[in-house]
């Protein structure tokens, strides 16, 4: 399947670029740790599960934004997006590859963040981990898409959080609900539905974001 091969080639490129630059991932990890420390001073003495879970997701969201803001910077600064758009591959492959690469970085940051959270605040259950996986998919799919839009505007990294946060709201609800509700199934199902719905919308409309 040539589509899969295109995605693989592009994702390889993105992963290589980050491994060479070595700036986004360490920044994300450091950021999330620093945010947790800030949370400690902001929360009351014995914070409830709901309070800390909520702040966990705020942390993840803003850490993701950090990474997402950088996603299309090479394509923008070096104008290489033209090169990708001219290639005969399906334009949505560009989005999918970039999403997968961003997902890898976010997951890598969470590998540090989640144990840190468990250490500082509350233990993490299986439902939370599953919620993290599902939420990450949605965050990266939509965030990468919006990142491609934001990067061609004048405002650039000012715009991405504004575009992203209203769309990220359902993810936060689903994720927090999964962690604190007694029956997380509905929330996990909702997250999966969000991923599916917005995944399809992103996949179908990326063409219009990069080509005229």
């Amino acid at each position, binding site marked *: 399947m040539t589509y899969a091969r295109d995605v693989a080639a592009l994702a390889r490129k993105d992963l290589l670029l980050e491994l060479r630059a070595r700036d986004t991932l360490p920044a994300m990890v450091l950021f999330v740790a620093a945010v947790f420390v800030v949370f400690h001073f902001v929360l009351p003495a014995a914070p409830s599960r*709901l309070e800390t879970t909520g702040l966990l997701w705020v942390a993840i969201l803003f850490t993701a934004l950090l990474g997402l803001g950088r996603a299309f910077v090479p394509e923008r600064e070096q104008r290489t997006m033209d090169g990708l758009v001219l290639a005969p591959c399906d334009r949505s492959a560009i989005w999918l590859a970039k999403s997968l690469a961003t997902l890898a970085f976010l997951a890598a940051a969470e590998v540090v963040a989640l144990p840190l959270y468990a250490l500082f605040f509350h233990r993490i259950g299986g439902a939370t981990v599953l919620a993290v996986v599902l939420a990450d998919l949605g965050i990266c799919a939509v965030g990468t898409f919006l990142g491609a*839009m*934001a990067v*061609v*505007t*004048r*405002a650039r990294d000012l*715009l991405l959080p*504004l*575009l992203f*946060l*209203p*769309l990220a*709201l*359902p993810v936060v*609800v*689903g994720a*927090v*609900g999964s962690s*604190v*509700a007694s029956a997380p199934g*509905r*929330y996990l199902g*909702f997250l999966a539905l*969000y991923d599916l*719905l*917005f995944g399809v*919308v992103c996949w179908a*409309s990326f063409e*219009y*974001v990069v080509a*005229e």
Partner: protein
Amino acid sequence: MAATIRAVGRSSRIPLPALAAVSLVLITTALVLVFYVAPNDANQGFSQRIFYFHVSIAFTAYACFIAGAWQAFRHLWKRDPRADLQSYVCVHQGLIFGTLVLLTGSIWAKISWGRWWVWSEDELVLFLVLYLFYCAYFMLRFSLEPGPQRANLSAVYALFGVVLIPVSFAAIRLAKEFLHPRVFTLHGPNFGGWILVTYCVAQVAMLVLAYTLYRVELAGKRLDERLRELKEVFA
């Protein structure tokens, strides 16, 4: 100049002056019905009347956003050259009416529960989220030079908005289970008799008003475009 204005305003089937007149009549009728004819609500009394405006404006705002998304879809799919501007004006009207939704909702909350904002009203929270979303639409649009890229990006974002409406609503409903216990519930009046008539008139009035404002703004924007083109020819 006058001829151009007339020509631009005449671009659709219904002439603008007639539309404006109909709007005025409907709004006046609605006002009369709301304040004089409709019966008092059993629980909340006279102040509940803002409900007629709040709900009809809310529905109108949704209609504007959906119309904006439809025009956006036509721009992307059919490449209709007029669709981008029409989509933008629809979204703009939606935002204006959305502002009114938040205002009337806030007034209603103050009247009903003594606070200017309540998080327990799903529809109000949904509107807040959408409001933020569509404000970002404007920031996106104004951050780009006019051209095919701006039109494409705006259209895609408008489509995202319409997908977000039901998803957000579901999210807000889900969130209530772990956020706020259901303390305040919104009861619309029991629809019957004059209440139904009043609401319907108010709703139609709002929709016609929205359409009139849409046509006015569209005519103005099209005039701007024509002026720019003429300036170029003479340059």
